Every structure is written in C-alpha cells, then in structure tokens.
C-alpha cells in the first residue's frame, strides 16, 4: 500500500471566483476571465503585482486561434511583466502546477485560472484531436463516442442500466436548482428522460454535457500568507493525477484504476468525505467514479449539479475545486474531494482533497 503524499508546504485556497456557465458568451475569452481575476484579487486585498506566480489552463483548438492562450494573458494583468505559465489542460492542472510550484518554498502566492468557450466551434471535432493521430483522430473518434462505449460497457457488465444514467441526470439537474452558476436545472422525471431518443446509443442528449462557455479563477497561498490574506482558508491537503492508456480498447472501461490509485495517493479515506465534486461530463461516469472512489451515502456528490448542468471545458475541472471550496467555506462539509478529468472516457484523472480551517 502506497503512503499518501505529504506535501512539505501547507497550501490553502484564499479566494475563488467563477462565471456562470453560459450557453454562449458573446465576447472574447479575456473579457470572460477578467471579472474572475479581478474578483479574487479584490477578495484578498492584494495588489496585482504582489502575486508571485500566474498560471492558466485553456485550449487553443477550442478558441480556434493559434496562441489564444497568449491573448488570455490580457485578462490576468500582465503588465509590467509577471512570472507566468500555461497548461493546455483544464484549469485543475494549472492548479496542480501552482500547488507544486509553492512546494519549493520560495514564493507565497499563485493566481490560477481556467477558461474555455465551446460555443463557437465543435468540441467533438476539436477533442477528437486528443486521440491517437494514426488510428483514431483520422476517423474523428470523439469524446461522446468514447462515452458511448463506456456506457455500453457498463451495461454489458451488468454494472448499470440506462435508468441509472437517467437517475444521475435527474439528481444533477435537481441539485443545480440551488446553483446560480448552473446553465441547466430543474425537476426531471426519470421516466420522461428514458422516453427521449438516443443521441449516442446508449446515451441520450441529457446524458451528455451542454455546450458551455465559462471561466474560473483562484488564489492559493502558503500557510502564513494564507492566514494573512483570508479569515477562513480552505486547505489543499493533497493532489494527485493518474492516467490510463489512450487506446480505449486496452482499458476496462467499467472501472477507473487511475482514480483508485489517485484516491490511495491522496489518502482519500484517511478522513471523512463530506462532499465530492466530480467531473461527470457524461452521466455513466458518476457510477464509475462513485465506485472507484469508494463513496457511500455519507458523501454528497455534486451538490452543485456538476458538469451535466454546465460544462465549460478547460474551466470545468477547476470549477469542481471552486464548488468544493465554496461548500467547505460555507460549512456544508469539513472535508471533501474534487475530481477533474482529461482525455476521453475518464482517461486521465486528478483528485484534490480540501479541508476546512481547523
């Protein structure tokens, strides 16, 4: 049994902000990010140039512009020049890099952001380019198709039914009624959902994410600085990222060994798991994640509604961390886990354990 990672530096989230999940944000990506950045700076009372390091996650293929990530720097206040980095990944991986950067102990604060606009293009076409360039990308193997395979595999293995998928959807939409940032919400009847036609058999449209634009940002800080900047910091106790093969036919799609390993590494069950904010982009993923994470009824799963109710790619994983941090800051739980995913059908998984101030 591997031991949970013990980060030498305690790191906390001291401010966070997100946009609503928009069906279409009719302005530029920097204009979408900027209010989040301004909000987190204002929450801490810091001067922009007191922030030691800045990192963003986004995807140029989504924006349809070479070097779009460079334009996004307009949003983070980069003049006079700042110390800055970027990942072509969801903002949750920008958080990971920021967290690791703080472990070196020479800087105190990091501004993290994640953003994406899915509305101008086709995410199915763009994200098919994440796949193997010889045997998958030329036939347009897209994330929805890979989610369809995963759903079919679950059904074939007797681990889930289409009704189970519909129940995830109904629960997510009901939870989202209390979330002002959600794009979709409401009371749905499982029977009605099952009467809908297939979009990607065995998936229906509601089993798939809406097309969304959005952004999120946070400031993280080392312990002393965190206490100075914030009355109730939310501590990042552990963070871990694990991947599986990019060949879906080599994976057991009904399980997530990478989530199991990451959960072990972050010591997920070394304490209570009150809240789990999971990147359930397609409804069957919740069933796999619950099992791989070993969650039971004691855990509130996706109280925000999750990505089925608003899924701005490249911000959606970071938004899970933000939603969890908000829940903990509000006292809705003392400890929880946020999950971000990259690649098709939960190929890559990142877990982040947060805990309230104690």
């Amino acid at each position, binding site marked *: 049994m591997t031991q949970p990672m013990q980060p030498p530096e305690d790191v906390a989230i001291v401010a966070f902000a997100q946009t609503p999940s928009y069906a279409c944000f*009719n302005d530029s990506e920097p204009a979408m990010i900027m209010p989040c950045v301004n909000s987190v700076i204002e929450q801490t009372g810091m001067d922009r140039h007191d922030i030691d390091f800045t990192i963003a996650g986004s995807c140029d293929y989504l924006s349809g512009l070479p070097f779009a990530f460079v334009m996004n720097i307009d949003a983070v206040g980069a003049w006079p020049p700042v110390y800055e980095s970027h990942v072509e990944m969801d903002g949750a991986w920008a958080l990971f890099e920021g967290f690791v950067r703080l472990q070196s102990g020479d800087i105190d604060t990091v501004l993290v952001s994640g953003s994406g606009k899915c509305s101008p293009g086709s995410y199915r*076409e763009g994200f098919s380019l994440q796949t193997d360039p010889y*045997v998958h990308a*030329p036939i347009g193997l*897209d994330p929805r198709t890979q989610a369809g395979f995963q759903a079919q595999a679950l059904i074939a293995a007797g681990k889930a039914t289409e009704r189970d998928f519909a129940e995830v959807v109904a629960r997510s939409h009901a939870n989202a009624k209390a979330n002002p940032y959600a794009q979709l919400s409401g009371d749905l009847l499982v029977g009605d959902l099952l009467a809908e036609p*297939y979009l990607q058999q065995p998936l229906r449209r509601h089993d798939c994410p809406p097309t969304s634009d959005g952004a999120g940002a946070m400031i993280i800080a080392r312990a002393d600085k965190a206490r100075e900047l914030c009355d109730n910091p939310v501590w990042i106790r552990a963070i871990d990222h694990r991947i599986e093969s990019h*060949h879906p036919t080599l994976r057991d799609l009904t399980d997530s060994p990478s989530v199991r390993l990451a959960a072990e590494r972050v010591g997920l069950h070394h304490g209570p798991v009150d809240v789990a904010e999971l990147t359930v982009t397609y409804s069957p993923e919740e069933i796999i994640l619950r099992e791989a994470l070993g969650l039971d009824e004691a855990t509130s799963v996706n109280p925000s509604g999750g990505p089925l109710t608003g899924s701005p790619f490249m911000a959606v994983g970071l938004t899970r961390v933000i939603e969890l941090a908000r829940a903990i800051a509000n006292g809705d739980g003392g400890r929880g886990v946020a999950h971000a995913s990259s690649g098709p059908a939960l190929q890559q998984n990142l877990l982040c354990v947060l805990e309230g101030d104690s």
Partner: protein
Amino acid sequence: MPALHDVDYTLEYPYTRTTGPVIGPFLTGLRDGRILGQRCGSRVLCPPMEFDPDTAATLEPDLVEVGPGGEVVNWTWVAEPSAKHPFDRPFGFAFIKLDGAETALVHAVDTGGDAGAMSTGMRVRAQFRAERHGSIADVYFVPEADAVEQVIEPGEEPVTITEHLISLRVNEPLYPHRARFAQGLLDGKIIGQRSPVTGKVYVPGRGYDNMSRVLLDESDEVEVSDAGTVVAFTELNPVQYYGQTETEPYVRCSILFDGTDQPVIGIDIRDMTVDEMRVGMRMRCVWRDPEDRSVADIDNRYGNVPETVYARFEPTGEPDVPAEELKEHSW
C-alpha cells in the same frame, strides 16, 4: 443599420507525421487491402504497437495479417455524425476484434443507417475504399453478410509519412464591440475605446483595457481621426506557405491615428515602395466609396482597418513627426 455577418472561418493546420517501423507497414497494408497486427509474446495486437502495452517494452517489428473478418465486442451508435466521421449518415462505432488478433480496433461499421443491426458479438468484415492514401480511413466495416469481395491493387512505395489536415470550423456572432467597429468602417469612421482609468484610446478596442483590467463598452467609444503618423513599416516578400494568397512584394505599415495611444497595425500600401516610406510620415485614409466598402474579412480576432474599406493611404504633406516622439508606439 443592416445586420453584420457572423464570423465563420476554418482554422487549418496541415500535419505530416513519420510512421515508424510498425505503424508504417500497418498503413501500407491498409492501402494495399490488408490489415496487419503486431506480435507481442503469444498475442497479436491490432492496432499494432511499437511497445508492449502492459510493460512498455519495445517490440521488434513482427507483423502478421489479421482479419478481414472480426467480432464486435463493444459498440455505440452515432445518431448525429460529426464532419470528421467516416460517414455522413448515422453509423456505429465499434471495438472490433479481428480474426487472429487479441486486442480490438476502434472503427466504423456501416449498416446502412440501421442501429438495430448493431449488437455485441456480431460478425463484421473490412471493406476498403476505392481511394486509399495509407490511412486508417482507407478501411471501414460492414456486417459480414453485406460484405462484397474486393480486388485491391497494391501500391508501390511503403507509407512512411501520413498527412492529416486538421480543420476546425468556428462560427459565432461578431462580438458587440467588434460589430460597432466594423460598422464604423462602413460609415467611414474609425472607432476607438477610451479607458476610463488611464484615458488611453485603443484602436480597435478589444472590449477591455488590459493595462488596468477593466471592461470597456459602448459608453467608452470615441471616433478618432482618420489621419495619423507612420510608426513602423516593412516590405513583405510573400513566402508561399499553406494558405498564402499574396504573390508580389508590398509595404505593410502601422499608423498611429491622431488622438489615439495604440497604432493600427497591418495597413497595406500598394502604391508606394518601401524606399518612399518613413517613420514619422503623416498619412491619411482615402476611403472607398461607401458602396464599395466591405468588412467581410473582419472577425473577432483579425482585421483592423482592411484594404476593403480604403482606396489608399496618402501622405498629407505635413512635416514628419520626429521619430523620437514615437518610440513608445513603434510596433
């Protein structure tokens, strides 16, 4: 005011990739009507790999023919194909374990649009396209009973390079501030945005002041002069890269319009040579007749003051502005 166009363009990157010792023969085989797997211990992998997927150990190239028949071990039905899929009508994607292989290949199954024909355990068979390029898209699958016998003429040289044109379509409205800027050009006006924090005027505006991190809107917009000062120029000698439309050398300059703090870059000059250009030279816009102006090339990312709205820029004859005064704007 007539509605302005939506932005609709296609971003393309032509990729070429070497194929290597295992994928190369695999793609050569597809072009020649055969499907090859790679031996890995006692197993055969298809798609073939250069490494053992369990241990990551390098595998010596050792290819063996598999298929053309196989069994569907997982499937999903695509009700709404994307532009990148092998078929433009509904079809199945499947994990296909080809006869003689132990791993499965992901590929498309054409049942003529009938989702009911798909099932786990069904038998399928490879069919090869008439035009083949040494690509995974050279082949597709059909239910075994629908397969036809094909005579495939093998090609000559082995496939050592693949070409993959990445092509992504973007479609969105002009952002509100871009629409107002474009409409201004149609009206013979250059519209800028003035930052309420610094007072600096940006042309075209971007909807925000990135120095002060404030959003800008219509109330921050001002009409600026259509005369200004050349702050930079160069001669472009068009390199014939993919997508290039220019063939002859021409001058491109940046002009700081009077009353603004940011030069407009990319103004093309066709009736002057590079020898006639000077930093500090005063120029003014000679607009096209209103009915000849177009902003069709303006999108949300590119397009400042395009040639499709002006006939030319002409020197005003005023004395040059000393270059020293333009240092901050030489871009």
